[in-house]
């Protein structure tokens, strides 16, 4: 009985168990040798046949124009190296926390008013009157802490596994910028509820910036947007929190993920590749597929000759 996960892999990429391994008979079972009965033609009529083809045709229509299927299959079925473990889920977990923040943030923005006179009461309205308001507000508030923790864990994993080294230096730099932007989000979002806590914490934060050398006073003037924290500060923080930084984060996450797919994720530093044994048909097939047709950079689709060592279905895969 094959595992569900194994069934989801397309046939050319599937690792064929070697004869003699558990669950695989050494000789083909007799029923496998019989040819399957020809499919009974179904009587759907012309309209029915057209309807069945419609989804495939619309996908093909889109792909003719976008030519994205090669990249998508390459991305989806690219191989992750041997030894990949749960530490490697921290990056996607951070991304997921960001998505939670984005979705809950959109709903909060529907009810929030960034003015000094109404901010507090609009949050009170969200908390007390809006359906599931406090729940969504709570998810956004605690989601921020979860995202900060996850991004630090993800960075720790990258650091201790030496994953920032060649050829992934640029992706580390993008990641550090994403960390700074995440902290900016945490700082600017904190003022928005406009209660005592957020108000005074923001004053402390702005004053801390102001004590910095050279650019410090300019930075705090920019953040404060006036002689004291007030209406213009709130709308400025709101714009930074809602438009500027999320846009930058989304763009940089795109670049970060592009590099992840392009360069591949690292293997744990302790994992060693055994030297390949030559002339084993199954590994040759694996090697051919992984190295060429399904590689995301799309090079060399005809560079490797596909060797089908199974004597089975005889499909070419490149």
């Amino acid at each position: 009985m094959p595992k569900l996960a194994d069934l989801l892999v397309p046939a050319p990429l599937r690792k064929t168990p070697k004869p003699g391994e558990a669950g695989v008979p050494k000789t083909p079972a007799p029923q496998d040798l019989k040819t399957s009965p020809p499919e009974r033609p179904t009587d759907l009529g012309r309209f029915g046949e057209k309807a069945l083809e419609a989804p495939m045709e619309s996908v093909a229509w889109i792909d003719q124009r976008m030519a994205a299927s090669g990249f998508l299959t390459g991305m989806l079925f690219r191989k992750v190296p041997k030894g990949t473990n749960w530490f490697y889920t921290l990056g996607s977990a951070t991304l997921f926390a960001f998505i939670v923040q984005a979705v809950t943030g959109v709903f909060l923005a529907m009810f929030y008013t960034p003015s000094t006179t109404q901010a507090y009461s609009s949050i009170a309205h969200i908390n007390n009157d809006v359906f599931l308001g406090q729940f969504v507000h709570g998810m956004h508030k605690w989601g921020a802490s979860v995202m900060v923790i996850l991004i630090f864990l993800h960075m720790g994993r990258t650091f201790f596994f030496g994953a920032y080294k060649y050829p992934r230096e640029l992706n580390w730099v993008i990641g550090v910028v994403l960390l700074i932007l995440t902290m900016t989000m945490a700082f600017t979002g904190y003022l928005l509820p406009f209660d005592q806590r957020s108000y005074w914490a923001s004053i402390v934060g702005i004053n801390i910036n102001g004590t910095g050398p050279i650019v410090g006073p300019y930075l705090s003037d920019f953040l404060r947007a006036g002689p004291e924290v007030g209406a213009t500060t709130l709308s400025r923080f709101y714009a930074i929190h809602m438009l500027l930084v999320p846009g930058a984060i989304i763009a940089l996450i795109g670049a970060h993920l592009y590099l992840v797919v392009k360069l591949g994720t690292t293997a744990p530093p302790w994992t060693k590749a055994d030297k390949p044994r030559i002339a084993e048909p199954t590994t040759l097939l694996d090697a051919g597929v992984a190295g060429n047709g399904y590689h995301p950079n799309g090079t060399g689709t005809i560079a490797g000759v596909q060797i089908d060592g199974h004597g089975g279905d005889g499909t070419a895969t490149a």
Partner: protein
Amino acid sequence: MKPSEKQAYLEEYELLKKKGKPFFPYAVMKDSVMALIVVGVIIAMSILLGAEQGPKADPTTTTYVPRPEWYFFFLFEVLRVIKPPELVPLATIGIPTICMVLLLLLPFYDRGPERRPERRPLATTAGILTILAMGYLTYAGAVAGSPTEIDMKVAPQYKAGSEVVAGSGCLACHKLGENGNNGPGPELTHIGARIPRAAILRSIEIGPSIMPSFRELPKEKLNELADFLSSLH
């Protein structure tokens, strides 16, 4: 890394990849489980901890002790520990900026081919020390700035009064030993030697000049407060 080492890494990586499994569904399965855990934790925190509002922001208040969110405690603590004014810019912007630049440029000065943490003693030690330092500063920031504690020796019978001082925001305007801001209010470190207990109590209740009145405090707390302050000689 020398070009030969780069080449060796890429070859080794290619082999590891051949031995690996497709991203979908194997890695996707793990990522999905992790995503479910993340959203589960966020939902649980939202339900258990809620998102209660504090009192409305009031720029005129003088009794509120400002505290940042927990993930900025380490910065807050660096600022609190480094007191001399000429060093403050270094503490607030200097140290974080230097750390950020060091972090950003990490792959450009750590160029060795070795990736195993136990064979990179310098990097691993630096990393662990950074984590310990940030953990300690976060903890210290969480505890030290706590509005219900004052960092000084207090006799047990005056403990309650010192907590009222801390919790009522007196330190926003008064200096008390190593705690609190020096001004606009007078220093309280030796207040008991200068002013008798009754006068202290009256000042707290009336709120002379710009000081707010603390008449709303319970009688018992006012007495504890006066006991503590008049004990400061």
